[in-house]
């Protein structure tokens, strides 16, 4: 045996030891989450005195088992993805599942099936897209596909909850914007990694500022336009906010020039101000946000009920199953965080926020560890996407920002959202898998 291959052999042994240790951490955490889900299911089953069926117990057992299966599969196939992301998502999604069973068992059952489908999609993503690098080759196809998917609902879409962003596919309704988000991140990661140098340094000088030429400005303006179109035609303020803030984050990550962020925010603010004067529904949203109390019976009802629920929770909450979340409209999707705050209190609500912060921390770590530009940008973009979505909806239900119709990732009811977020998780894991193998 030559010395070089012996050295490689030794480092391979050390690495596989580290990987096994990582998966063991994952199993320990998943076991703890399993106990957590069991106690939640038992409290729900016993507490509702026969009204709730034993489906909740069955669903929790199956979901935890499914998470373990995914982890076992990774272990035996030698997958090296990050070992904290899966437990984080498991904790968020079991909490969501238990709360959906508590709110309405019918939603709980459907969410259960969507979770299993989501985990299947996660496995497929970590298997088929494991060499995710080829994704950077098709950026204009994403741009086109994304654009079509976004425009389709404008013509053929159905309006649900004030936003016209749904497609009726017969069996189920489908929300393309959930998937387009990921396409947008991949497109931007590919585009920015190609044009990073030009955007950072600039090609022309304008009043002491080095600025790039219009071919590099193009996407920025296009993104701005698409965000505003979404805002205006689909009344999808939440999606517009997510797209634009993710975009600015990625531009900042790529160029580290705060100028772009300031300029982009100014443009968005200008556009938002213009639409405030031009469109009634935007103005209505804004007025509800500033002061919902005069319209307590009508337009302000939702946010006020959400505030009441959060307030009544106190520090430790009313206890699972003892609150009155039925008064909150759309409590199973957008406003599920209010129900969690009501029944688990400040402790539970803060816990959910911490979980999202930990997710973002792991994502940023994955982005920092990669040496490749496309991978780093994709990881930071996907992380920003998830973090911003959680932030915008939590800020919405607590009236820090105007309430917008987006889901709380992994917790809210919704098939499109759940499956899309599992794809996002799979892509992040693939990036961390690659960097662990490269070292």
């Amino acid at each position, binding site marked *: 045996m030559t010395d070089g291959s012996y050295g490689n052999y030794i480092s391979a042994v050390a690495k596989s030891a580290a990987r096994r240790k990582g998966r063991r951490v994952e199993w320990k955490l998943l076991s703890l989450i399993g106990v957590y889900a069991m106690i939640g299911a038992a*409290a729900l089953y016993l507490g509702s005195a026969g009204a709730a069926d034993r489906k909740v117990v069955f669903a929790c057992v199956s979901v935890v088992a499914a998470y373990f299966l995914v982890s076992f599969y990774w272990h035996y196939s030698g997958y090296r993805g990050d070992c904290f992301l899966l437990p984080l998502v498991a904790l968020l999604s079991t909490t969501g599942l238990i709360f959906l069973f508590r709110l309405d068992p019918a939603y709980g059952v459907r969410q259960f099936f969507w979770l299993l489908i989501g985990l299947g999609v996660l496995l497929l993503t970590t298997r088929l897209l494991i060499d995710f690098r080829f994704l950077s080759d098709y950026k204009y196809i994403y741009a086109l596909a994304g654009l079509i998917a976004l425009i389709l609902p404008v013509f053929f879409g159905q309006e649900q909850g004030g936003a016209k962003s749904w497609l009726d596919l017969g069996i189920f309704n489908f929300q393309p914007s959930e998937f387009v988000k990921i396409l947008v991140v991949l497109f931007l990661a590919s585009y920015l990694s190609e044009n990073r140098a030009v955007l950072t340094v600039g090609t022309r000088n304008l009043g002491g500022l080095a600025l790039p030429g219009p071919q590099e400005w193009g996407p920025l303006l296009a993104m701005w336009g698409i965000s505003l179109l979404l805002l205006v035609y689909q009344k999808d303020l939440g999606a517009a906010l997510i797209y634009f803030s993710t975009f600015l984050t990625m531009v900042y990550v790529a160029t580290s020039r705060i100028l772009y962020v300031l300029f982009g925010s100014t443009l968005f603010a200008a556009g938002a101000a213009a639409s405030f004067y031009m469109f009634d529904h935007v103005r209505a949203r804004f007025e509800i946000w500033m002061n919902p109390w005069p319209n307590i019976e009508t337009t302000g009802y939702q946010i006020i009920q959400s505030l009441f629920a959060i307030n009544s929770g106190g520090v430790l909450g009313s206890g699972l199953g003892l609150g009155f979340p039925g008064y909150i409209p759309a409590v199973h999707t957008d406003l599920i965080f209010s129900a969690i705050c009501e029944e688990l209190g400040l402790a539970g609500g803060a816990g959910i926020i911490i979980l999202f912060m930990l997710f973002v921390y792991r994502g940023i770590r994955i982005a920092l560890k990669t040496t490749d530009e496309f991978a780093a940008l994709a990881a930071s973009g996907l992380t920003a996407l998830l973090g911003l979505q959680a932030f915008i909806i939590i800020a919405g239900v607590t009236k820090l920002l105007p309430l917008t119709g987006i889901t709380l990732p992994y917790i809210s009811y919704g098939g499109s959202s759940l499956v899309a977020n599992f794809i996002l998780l799979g892509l992040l894991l693939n990036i961390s898998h690659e960097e662990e193998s490269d070292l």
Partner: protein
Amino acid sequence: MLTILITALRYAFLLLLLISIFRLIKWMIADLKEVSSQQVIENPPGRPREEPRSSFGTTGEVELVVVESSVSQPKSGDTFGFQRETLIGRDERSDIIIAGTFASAWHARIYFKEGQYWLEDLKSTNGTFLNEIQVNQPIVLANRDKIRIGGVIFQFVRWGYEMGADH
């Protein structure tokens, strides 16, 4: 009775959510410490990478850093330079003296040959481990390799490898 049980379960649910979060954070911090200890060795504070280097065999280019130590000597963080031959053992005449009874009097040596540093176990009682694999015959050391003798872990650092690529 049942109501007490249900109330207990409800609070246990919240408690377990928080415990799970604490466990997650705890493991993540452990993970972070592991990484940062690696990075400290890669780039020790107060030691600029562009340090002028003399030719082979003297300090500066190559060194042995104590990463972990369960004995009084050497201490964690100590660094040792190299001669053409460096002896490690319990004996007072060794170049690197390890206190305690675990190490043999002449435990191992590191020597320079054909442009490489080699680690050789000198038939010690308790063995020498390179990256947790027992050393039976002389073996070439690479940058960042870990050498363990009893409760003392050294890391082999060779700047020359990284600098060499620039020329």
